[in-house]
C-alpha cells in the first residue's frame, strides 16, 4: 500500500508537467489547427528564463540590495518568466506561423519543428552546452505520512499546476476573451466576420500556452534542477501525446490525459522492469487511441472542435 501511494505521489508530480505542457499544444491546435512542435522548446526557454530571473534575484537578495525571501522570489520568477515567455511565444507566432497561416498544414508543422530546432541550437550557441543549476528556491522539507515520502516541493508543484489549470478553465469559460477563443475554435471563418480579430485571439492563445509552458519549466527546474538546451524535446513529445489523448483542442482532456500519462509511466516502471517502461506505457496509449481515436473529449474531424 505504501508502495502504491508513494507512486501515486510520484505520478502526480510527473503528470503535472505533461498536463501543463499539453494545454499549450491543445489550445493552439484548437484555434489554428496547428501542432506547435516548438512548444517543448518554449518550455525549455521558459525554464531558462526562469533560471536567469531567479538567479538574478537570488544574487540581489544575497548582496543585500534587495533582500527578498525565497518564496517571494519564487512567485516573482513565475510571474516574470510567464510574461517573458509569452512574449517569446508571440514573437514565434508573428515571425514563423502568421506568414504561413494559409499555407498547407504540413508546411506549418515543418516550420514549427524548425522553430524548435532554432530555439535549441540558438540556446546552445548562446549559452553553451554547460548544464545550468536551477537555484533551490524552495528549501526541501520531507514529510513521512505513514511511510510515504512527500516533500513540500512536490506539493507546491501539484498545487500550482492545478491552480493554473483551474484559472485557465475559468478564463476560457467565464470571460469574454475566453468566449472569443471558444468561438474562434468553433469556426475561424465566420467568427472574424462578427468583429473578433483572429490575430488578437491567436496572439492571446500563444501567450497563454507559452506562459503555461514557462510555469511548467520553472516547476520542472525546481524539481529537476539540471537545465540543458535539449530538455524540452522528450517532455514536449510526450506532452503532445497527452494532448492527442485528451482529445484535440480539449482543455480538461489535455489536463486529464497529462496526469494519466504520468500515472501510466510511473506505474509501468514501478511494476514491470524499468527497461520496458516506455515500450509498455506507449503500447497502452496506442491501444487507448485505437478504441478512442479522437481521444477522451475529442470529436470526430467532421464536427468542429471545442474548448
Amino acid at each position, binding site marked *: 500500500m505504501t*508502495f502504491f501511494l*508513494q*507512486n501515486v505521489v*510520484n505520478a502526480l*508530480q*510527473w503528470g503535472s508537467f505533461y498536463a501543463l505542457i499539453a494545454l499549450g499544444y491543445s489550445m493552439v491546435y484548437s484555434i489554428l489547427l496547428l501542432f506547435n512542435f516548438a512548444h517543448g522548446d518554449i518550455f525549455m526557454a521558459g525554464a531558462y528564463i526562469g533560471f536567469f530571473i531567479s538567479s538574478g534575484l537570488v544574487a540581489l537578495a544575497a548582496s543585500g540590495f534587495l533582500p527578498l525571501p525565497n518564496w517571494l522570489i519564487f512567485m516573482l520568477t513565475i510571474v516574470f518568466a510567464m510574461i517573458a515567455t509569452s512574449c517569446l511565444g508571440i514573437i514565434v507566432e508573428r515571425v514563423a506561423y502568421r506568414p504561413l497561416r494559409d499555407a498547407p498544414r504540413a508546411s506549418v508543422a515543418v516550420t514549427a519543428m524548425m522553430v524548435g530546432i532554432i530555439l535549441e541550437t540558438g540556446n546552445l550557441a548562446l549559452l553553451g552546452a*554547460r*548544464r545550468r*543549476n536551477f537555484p*533551490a528556491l524552495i528549501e*526541501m522539507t*520531507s514529510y*513521512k505520512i505513514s511511510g510515504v*515520502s512527500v*516533500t513540500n*516541493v*512536490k506539493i507546491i508543484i501539484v498545487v500550482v499546476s492545478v491552480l493554473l489549470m483551474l484559472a485557465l478553465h475559468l478564463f476560457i469559460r467565464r470571460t469574454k476573451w475566453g468566449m472569443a477563443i471558444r468561438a474562434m475554435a468553433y469556426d475561424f471563418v465566420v467568427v472574424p466576420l462578427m468583429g473578433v480579430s483572429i490575430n488578437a485571439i491567436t496572439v492571446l492563445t500563444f501567450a497563454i500556452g507559452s506562459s503555461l509552458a514557462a510555469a511548467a519549466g520553472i516547476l*520542472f527546474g525546481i*524539481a*529537476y*534542477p*539540471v537545465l*540543458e538546451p*535539449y*530538455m524540452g*524535446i*522528450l*517532455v514536449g513529445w510526450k506532452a503532445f501525446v497527452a494532448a492527442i489523448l485528451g482529445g484535440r483542442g480539449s482543455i480538461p482532456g489535455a489536463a486529464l490525459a497529462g496526469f494519466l500519462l504520468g500515472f501510466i*509511466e*510511473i*506505474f509501468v*516502471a*514501478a511494476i514491470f*522492469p*524499468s*527497461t520496458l*517502461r*516506455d515500450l509498455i506505457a506507449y503500447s497502452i496509449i496506442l491501444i487507448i487511441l485505437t478504441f478512442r481515436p479522437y481521444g477522451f473529449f475529442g470529436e470526430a474531424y467532421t464536427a468542429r472542435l471545442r474548448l
Partner: protein
Amino acid sequence: MLKKIGLLILALSLVAIVMGGCAPKAPAVIKIGINAEITGDIPKVGEGTKYAAEMWLEDIKAAGGLEVGGKKYPVELVIEDNEAKAESAAAANTKLITQDQVLVIVGPQASKQAVPAGEVADANQTPMISPWSTNPRTTKDRPWVFRACFLDPFQGPVVAKFATEEFGFTKAAVLYDVASDYPKGLAEFFKQAWEELHGPGSVVAFETFTTKDRDFSAQLTKIIASGAEFLFTPQYYDEVPLIVKQAHELGWKKPILGSDSWGSAELMTLCGDDCKGCFFSTHYAAAGAKGATKEFIDRYKAKYGYVPDDVGALTWDAMRIVEKAIKDCGKITGDIKTDRKCVRDAMAKIKDFEGITGKMTFTEEGDPIKCAVIVKISDTGEFEFYKQACP
C-alpha cells in the same frame, strides 16, 4: 596553390632524405613522440599532457640524460598537436613514426583519437602508450599499443569489492542508463562481480532508465522498497545530481556509490549538498594524496599554478613506464626498428610498476592491471582520496 604545397612537400621530403642519408651517426638521441590534444575542444587535456611530459623531461635532463645499459643518452620530446580530431591524430602518429623517427609515442589521450592513432602505431610497429583512453578498442589485438589507465568495465568489480569490504553490505541496488554504453557496461560488470561475491539474487534491484530521463522516482521507489543497502549508479554528472536528490527526497539515507564518470568539477555545482558523503571510483584523487602522488601534485602545482587532473597524473605515469621500458631494454642500437621492438617487449614485461595512479602490471592486451582510487565527496564538496581499491 595545391601544386605549390605539393612541390614544397616534395622538396622538404627530398631534403629530409638527403640529410637523413648523409648525417653522420651522431650520438643517438632518444626521441619520444607526444601526440596530444593541444588545440580543439579539449585543450586542457593537451595542456596537461604537455606539462607532465615536460616535467618528466626536466628530471631526465637534470640526471644528464637517460641511462640505458650504462650509457647516458640525451632525450628529445617531439610534441605534435592532433587538434582533438581522429584523422589528425592518425596523421600526427604517421609523422612522428616516419619523419621524426621517434622510438615510442605517448598519447593520444581521448579514445576518439587514441583508437585510430593506435592503428597507425600498430601497423608501423612502433610502441605507443595512451595514458587516458579507456575504450577497449584502443589496445585490442594491437600488440604495440598500451595504456596507463584501467578500462571502464574494471570499475564494476572494484566498487563491488569496496562495498563488501568497507561496509560489509550484501544487498546492492543499481540504477543506470540502458541506452548508453558506458553506464550499461559498468552496471552489468558490477552485477556480475557482486553476484560472484554474494550469490545470485544479491543485486536486489537492477533498475534502468533512458538517456534524457529526468524523473527517476518510480525506479527509486522500487529500489527503496527492495531493501538494498546501497545504490550504485555509474552515471554522468548530468543525471547524478537528479538521482541523488530524488533518492533523498524519497527518504533514502543509505550510501550512494558511483564511477569515474562522476569526477567532473561540474558535479558539485549541480548537485550541491546532496552529493556530499557519496563515494565513487576513479583513476586518481588530488585531495588527500600521499607519497609520490603528493610529490608530483605539489611539484606540478608549483610549476604551472594549478592542481593536475587525472590526465596529468596518467601522462606522468606513462612517461615513467616509457622510461622504464627503455631502461629495461638495455641497449640502444641506433637501428630504430630493433630498438622499437626491444622497447615494446620490455614494456609488455613490466610488472608491479609503482605509478602515482597505482601499481601496474600489463596484460597481454597491453592494459594494466591496477588499483583504482575510491574518492569520498567531503563535507566541503571536495573529491577526497578515501582508499585504494584493487579488484
